[in-house]
């Protein structure tokens, strides 16, 4: 009896030692959690989550202060990936948060007065222009955050849904195996 306990304890010690050694020897250097969360967020910097940008939201998630379903641009897919990363249950997007089709902002050339207010509002510096000159949005850099809409004094900015073309077109999921038609 006593010897059995001893043997078991010895085996436990040895195996525990091996495990401990392996965890040090083969440790994977990891990004901190904030970086990993931030990598999943879509970087629109739109503030729809209630935080002033993606990084602050990532920090709040990492600290456990914010829910994972507050990012409409990331969509359900983003929530799912956050849930996987954090090992929690995925959930639908928060109340009133609908993912919108991907869009870019477009400035109406006829009405822009060149006030530079939108330039200041743009979180990713995607608007070029100078005072009193017509501003232009660099479509490839626009994240579609809509933060430039409210500051515009003449409401000359509108959102345009990105259209499907032969470059960004995707192959559809094949018709799935036949289910019985009810």
């Amino acid at each position, binding site marked *: 009896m006593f010897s059995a306990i001893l043997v078991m304890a010895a085996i436990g010690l040895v195996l525990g030692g091996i495990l401990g050694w392996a965890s040090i020897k083969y440790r994977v250097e990891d990004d901190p959690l904030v970086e990993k969360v931030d990598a999943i967020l879509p970087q629109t910097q739109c503030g729809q989550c209630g935080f002033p940008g993606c990084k602050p939201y990532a920090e709040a998630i990492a600290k456990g202060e914010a829910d994972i379903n507050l990012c409409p641009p990331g969509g359900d897919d983003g929530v799912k990936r956050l849930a996987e990363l954090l090992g929690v249950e995925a959930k639908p997007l928060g109340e009133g948060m609908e993912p919108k089709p991907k869009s870019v902002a477009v400035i109406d050339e006829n009405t822009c007065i060149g006030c530079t207010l939108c330039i200041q509002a743009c979180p990713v510096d995607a608007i070029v222009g100078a005072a009193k000159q017509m501003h232009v949005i660099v479509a490839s850099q626009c994240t579609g955050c809509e933060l430039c809409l409210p500051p515009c004094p003449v409401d000359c900015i509108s959102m345009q849904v990105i259209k499907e073309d032969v470059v960004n077109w995707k*192959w559809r999921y*094949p*018709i799935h195996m*036949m*289910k*019985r038609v*009810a």
Partner: protein
Amino acid sequence: MIGSPYTLGGNTTSAIMLKVMLALLPGIGAHAWLFGPGIWVSLLLCSFFAIGFEALLLMMRGLPMKPFLSDNSALLTAWLLALSLPTLAPWWLYAIGMLFAIVVAKQLYGGLGQNLFNPAMVGYAVLIISFPVYMTQWVAPLSLADHALTLADAFDVVFAGQGSISPDAYTSATVLDTWKTQTRLQTPVESILAQPVFASSGQAIVAAMYLLGGLFLLWSRLITWHIPLAFLAGVAVSAGLLHLLDPTQHASPLLHLFSGGVMLGAFFIATDPVTAASTPRGKLIYAGLAGILVAIIRAFGGYPDGVAFAVLLMNVCVPFIDSYTQPRVFGHKIKQGSDKP
């Protein structure tokens, strides 16, 4: 939306299943010739239960009947189980076997293609664990039977219980059973081999017919050589080693190869693509280890035959074997091991 290719060649699933069943016919014929017409009853019963359970489950899962019933997979499972079970067992034994094969092992895992375990072998394992007595009452070769059963007799026995005819009149122990019990009794090998069941060679002929069917499968390219060869080699080599070590306890490899379920297993059961390893090296490992397990179970296990347990045990290892034996992809450098997870 469905894109190219717009032409299809090659087989269909239902044709593959049908050809495999075709390849079983020589073995079935030999069985009927040598052991009496009982085999027809069990084939019929198993087929009936298989289709019934399959249809029931398809209905419950909301799947269409026609494409899934006509894929012939349930029928093939039924035939393989029927050929693994003793003929002339009570009808409910076949029903329970098919219940576990079709409902539990196949449909509850998601249907054709999704099952982890070979359905027929699951049915067999459940029966041999639950009803060992019925599972050891094998029909004797006609040449040894006191009473040759007609087809009508066979129906009578299966449905009405043993009735007027005593089971002793038409059953006998199999080769493997006899070997196991006699060696435990320390009977000398010569006198074991002198027993009538060894002399009749009924089982060996049926096994040879399965081998013939298996060669047809190889020839028609429905299976590759890897699994049958590795399986038979696994059995022969390990049985041979044991035989060399102690000929009084362990039968010769030839006897192992041509008795019990080895031939059926090598060509028809271990080769079930759904549950077998799929890479060339993986197939060799999977079937080789299964063959070794058969010999070990036969030699040291409680049951006379070990094909079912060997196959089921190796089924568990298949995902693991497959992911470590991925073949080199065209244009990739030859490297040691694999980066597969």
